[in-house]
């Protein structure tokens, strides 16, 4: 049994990974060489607790950059420093070439921020949420209305425009929060877990919207727990764990470095020590509910499993993903 869907990521009909379009976007953006985000030794402490423990970042114009990591890794703490709402405890930080301490307000005027927790006005209508927020950026009333109408289409919320926000579904609220983050036509968009808690359909719709943004040359920075999301949306990413960056690179290069092209997932009906019997086929990683077998060629590995007379109750061959990278890097699975 083969998971076709898992392999069809860049095939016809699938959404193309962002990486393939990044070259065009860089020239579209046409911004100077200076990185939009520059951080050295960035630290955030809450009392005695160190949430972000000395990270370095460079994000260039037109890039789609991702923070990947488990709960408590320090992703949101980093994002809040980048969005100039929380001040670094120490280290150097430049956003759009400016200093967040001195120029916070000017920087925020050019950012679009989608926070991890929605902070829409539940008693206002969808439309009012967009226009009131636009006014915070100093847009004229006419301009605020014009942007609002554009974004209603972008977020596919036109039918809901006059209704209150409260009764909207989670996915619609998320789309509205993202649309709201674009109201000032930002140079840099920061999305903290844009799709957490959404069903697969809502998630794909959001990916498609973010993909369009990326195509227009908008610089995106996002955090996620989802490996597939990072793979779909990011040109480059860092894996965070315990406030530190434990790996970085393109999704492809991370997979090449820390995994194999394919992974076989085996489940056995009993608790016997199958890991030992699989030795030599590829790197073996026994998990509580299944055994992962890292292989250059998944089908060949499965053939070898059967040749050894083993009878797994289920076999799944899939492309290696960032989930596997994370497991390899930290020894833990990502659960969300």
């Amino acid at each position, binding site marked *: 049994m083969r998971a076709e869907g898992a392999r069809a990521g860049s095939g016809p009909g699938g959404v193309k990974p962002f990486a393939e379009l990044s070259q065009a976007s860089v020239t579209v953006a046409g911004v100077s060489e200076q990185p939009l985000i520059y951080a050295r030794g960035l630290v955030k402490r809450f009392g005695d607790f160190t949430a972000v423990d000395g990270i370095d970042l460079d994000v260039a114009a037109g890039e789609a950059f991702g923070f990947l990591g488990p709960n408590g890794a320090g992703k949101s703490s980093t994002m809040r420093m980048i969005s100039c709402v929380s001040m670094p405890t120490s280290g150097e930080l430049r956003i759009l070439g400016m200093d967040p301490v001195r120029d916070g307000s000017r920087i*925020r005027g050019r950012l679009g921020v989608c926070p991890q927790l929605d902070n829409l006005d539940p008693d206002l209508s969808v439309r009012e949420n967009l226009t*009131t927020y636009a006014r915070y950026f*100093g847009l004229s009333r006419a301009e605020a209305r014009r942007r609002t109408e554009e974004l209603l289409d972008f977020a596919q919320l036109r039918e809901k425009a006059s209704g209150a926000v409260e009764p909207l579904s989670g996915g619609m609220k998320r789309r509205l929060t993202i649309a709201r983050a674009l109201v000032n036509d930002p140079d840099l968009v920061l999305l903290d877990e844009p799709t957490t808690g959404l069903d697969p359909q809502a998630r794909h719709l959001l990916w498609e919207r973010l993909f369009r943004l990326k195509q227009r040359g908008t610089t995106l920075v996002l955090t996620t727990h989802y490996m597939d999301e990072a793979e779909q949306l990011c040109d480059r990413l860092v894996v965070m764990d315990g406030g530190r960056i434990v790996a970085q690179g393109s999704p492809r290069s991370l997979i090449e470095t820390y995994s194999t092209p394919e992974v076989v997932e085996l489940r056995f009906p009993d608790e016997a020590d199958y890991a030992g019997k699989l030795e030599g086929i590829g790197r073996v990683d026994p998990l509580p509910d299944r055994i992962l077998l890292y292989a250059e060629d998944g089908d060949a590995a499965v053939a070898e499993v059967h040749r050894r007379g083993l009878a797994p109750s289920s076999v799944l061959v899939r492309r290696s993903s960032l989930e596997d990278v994370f497991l390899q890097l930290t020894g833990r699975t990502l659960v969300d």
Partner: protein
Amino acid sequence: MAHPTVAVLERHLFLYRRLWRASVFSSFVLPVLFLVSIGMGVGGHVGRIGGVDYLAWIVPGVMASTAFQMAIGESTYSVLGDFKWVRGYHAMRATPVEIRDMLAGWLLYILLRVEIAAVVFLGVTGLFGALRSPWAVVTPLVAALVAVAAAAPVTAFAASIEHDSYFALLFRFVMIPSTLFAGVFFPVEQLPAAVRPLAYVSPLWHGVELSRAATLGGAPPWPAAVHVACLVVFAVVGLVWARAAFRTRLQD
């Protein structure tokens, strides 16, 4: 270009447009009903105070205390809610809006609400014949001062707490006593001397005395400038505290 303060004011007005019906009763109808029942009903038994009938005597007090109560009522759940549940201030924080804009926009909103109520009330009481001096036209300004003197510290308090149960303490131990002992319903001189200082530290008392001097055409117990200065002190201390509370609350 919209000034960020104006943008914040607009947001509160948008919200008010959705919720205004709930406040009509307490801002406009209740004070007038109050006048009719207390001023005319109770007034019949009380007779005259300070040379005027009871209705004319309590009108300025009710006006100032309406401003006081509106300012406090508005600055409790809405402010805490915008930090805790709606997170409206966190939304503003991610934009060019600064804390001073949040506070200025918020106080302007409260002033607008209080001023409309004060002017309506002034008109109604004028029809009742309860205004005895042309100085009565300054009472909306006194109401504005009372509103800021009350709203600023209460906003700061609301921004500093984690749970709304603290508001019950605020109502019970601050708002109700300062309304009862601030010369709204009876002269402060009738209080035992030991309790009287309670009135002096209530911003409402200063507002009531200024308003009363204005509608009846007399002189307030202390020099008017001193009453005004006391209200300004409440406002300034409240603003400084509010600014610090907002900053702490929004810093991480």
